[in-house]
């Protein structure tokens, strides 16, 4: 795991350690002392290159490699090295879409920090938001923030279900609403399950 240089590394280390992972952290001499309370190997970079340091770790025993530094090109180049050495699962955090595409090409799992930030902003600022997550086959799950121009606005759940052939629920404040008579209002979160085409139609 490549140090992010901030608190993210500590959070990730804690979670991974709680899940029984043996963690090899690549950091620097200055940051090293911040991790002595955690069950990690702390590899400190000195005059050698990152590549050489990573080669020194028994990569054949590594199950997952995680590169979360703020430097996209460093993350991708080290991730590619790990993939080429047979590490089965390599995950990187990236900010740029071009880097994401490159990572995906090499079988690297890319986590977009931009999208994570954006996702949070959607929720904090109540921005117009739709997300369809494929579940199985042609079916998926729609999350949608109901705004003034949303199709479901002012329609009852039974009506929506009948029109689009999907199952629908609403989240309003701390409440989950499933009553067929309930009407979608501005500011509701609408959750729907059904055929992906129908969900696209509903959210368009």
């Amino acid at each position: 795991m490549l140090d992010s240089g901030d608190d993210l590394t500590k959070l990730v280390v804690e979670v991974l350690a709680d899940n029984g992972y043996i963690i090899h952290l690549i950091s620097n001499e200055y940051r090293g002392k911040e991790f002595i309370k955690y069950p990690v190997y702390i590899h400190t970079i000195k005059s050698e290159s990152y590549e050489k340091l990573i080669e020194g770790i028994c990569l054949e025993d590594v199950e997952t490699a995680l590169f979360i530094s703020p430097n996209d090109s460093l993350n991708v180049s080290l991730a590619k090295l790990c993939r080429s050495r047979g590490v089965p699962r390599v995950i990187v955090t990236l900010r740029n879409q071009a880097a994401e595409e490159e990572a995906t090409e090499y079988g690297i799992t890319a986590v977009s920090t931009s999208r994570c930030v954006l996702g949070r902003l959607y929720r904090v600022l109540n921005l117009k938001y739709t997300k369809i997550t494929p579940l199985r086959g042609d079916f998926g799950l729609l999350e949608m923030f109901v705004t003034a121009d949303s199709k479901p606005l002012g329609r009852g759940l039974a009506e929506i279900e009948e029109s689009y052939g999907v199952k629908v629920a609403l989240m309003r404040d701390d409440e989950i609403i499933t009553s067929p008579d309930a009407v979608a209002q501005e500011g509701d979160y609408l959750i729907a399950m059904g055929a992906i085409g129908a969900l696209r139609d509903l959210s368009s």
Partner: protein
Amino acid sequence: MSRDWLRRRLNVFDIYSLVHADSQSTFYFILGVVAAEAGRYTFLVVLYGTALMVAIALAYGEMGSRFPETGGSYLYVKTALGRTFGFFSAWLLALDQAIMVAYGSLDGVLYLANMLSYYGVDVPYLVARALSFLVALGLFAITLVGIKESARAATAIALLDIAVVGVLTVLLGLAASLRTPPPYFSWGNVPPSDVWAGLSYASRGYTGMDAIGQLAGEAEMPLVQVPRAAALAAGLGALYGVGLTALLMNSVAYPAVASNPATAVVQIAASMPYGRWLVLPAGVVTAVVQIMAALAGFVAFSRLLYKLAEEQLLPAVFSKVHRRFRTPHVSLVLSAAVASALLVPGEIYLIVDVYAISSLINYLLVSISLLVVVRRGDLYGAVRSPTVKGISLVGAVGVITTLAGVLLSTLVRYGELWIIGLWALAGALLLLRSRKKGVRPVK
């Protein structure tokens, strides 16, 4: 994908407690033997042994502050010197664990027998030997069925031992009975039988430190706790060692020690002004410590071989687990076989002469590994001793002292070294066989 892992629940004293029996038992076993050889120089010889132990503890502590997982010296040596050296360090250490089963079983029974003699019950040596076999067999059965080392039980025994031997015997004894000055105490006229032999045995008087590193995988904060536990083991070990030796030479007659060297602690307890009351608890506690050490020997031996087989350095048969009990039964049978072979002659000096030389070689390899790891400087340690031009002083002292210990142990008592040679040869053959069959390249 399912994942199994060890829970991180051990604190510093838990870690220490789990290796207490292992580390203390050796000294309880070997003190009388050192004294029988070194005569009036016993105290000085034990001081040398203590210095060696402290050097080993510091090296283990500093090395352990870099490794967060279970594996101990195998991991340390593998990281610094490669898999082949790592294999031999663990393979040799395993032999000592099997020997510990032998001496723990035998000495546990001898301590009980010796304690009973103070109450007029005479247990013939042959009966004690037979009982030691039964103890070893019983412990084998327990570990086969699958006893889990319990930190709570280990803590209770460690606390009991600290109370009875540490406080009531050593501290109170030093305060109440010490009348003669060091370094000869009351043995000023006792000529040494063989000082070099005494030094050889003292070099091996404090083994068990290696087990601390094995517990890193269960420690809450291994990089910090392993070195602290090593420091605690070194401090208490030194206190016990120096204190018991002073009391032995102050209060116990040399001929009594020389005629029955394996039970020095009970002899010390009996010599106290309140010895009449102390003999029973001291005898029971030391016997329990020895038997716990034998149990730990079974567990450690089988797990070391299991780990080596998992790493494809030994044939897969050693990583087989019993269908019902889920314990590494093949490794356990081998451990019982080696221990029984050492118990058959019933000769305490045979066990002493073979014991702990392998551990010293292991400690030497760990000290060399520390030098290498510090020199490379790429693995951050929570504990870092001073360096001179990139050379770790702790590592250097560890190499010098352990090398001296290995040389003393091998040059002075070479008669039974063929047993260790045979064991190393067997390991080499098994490693070669695994290399031919295995898919993983051996560095």
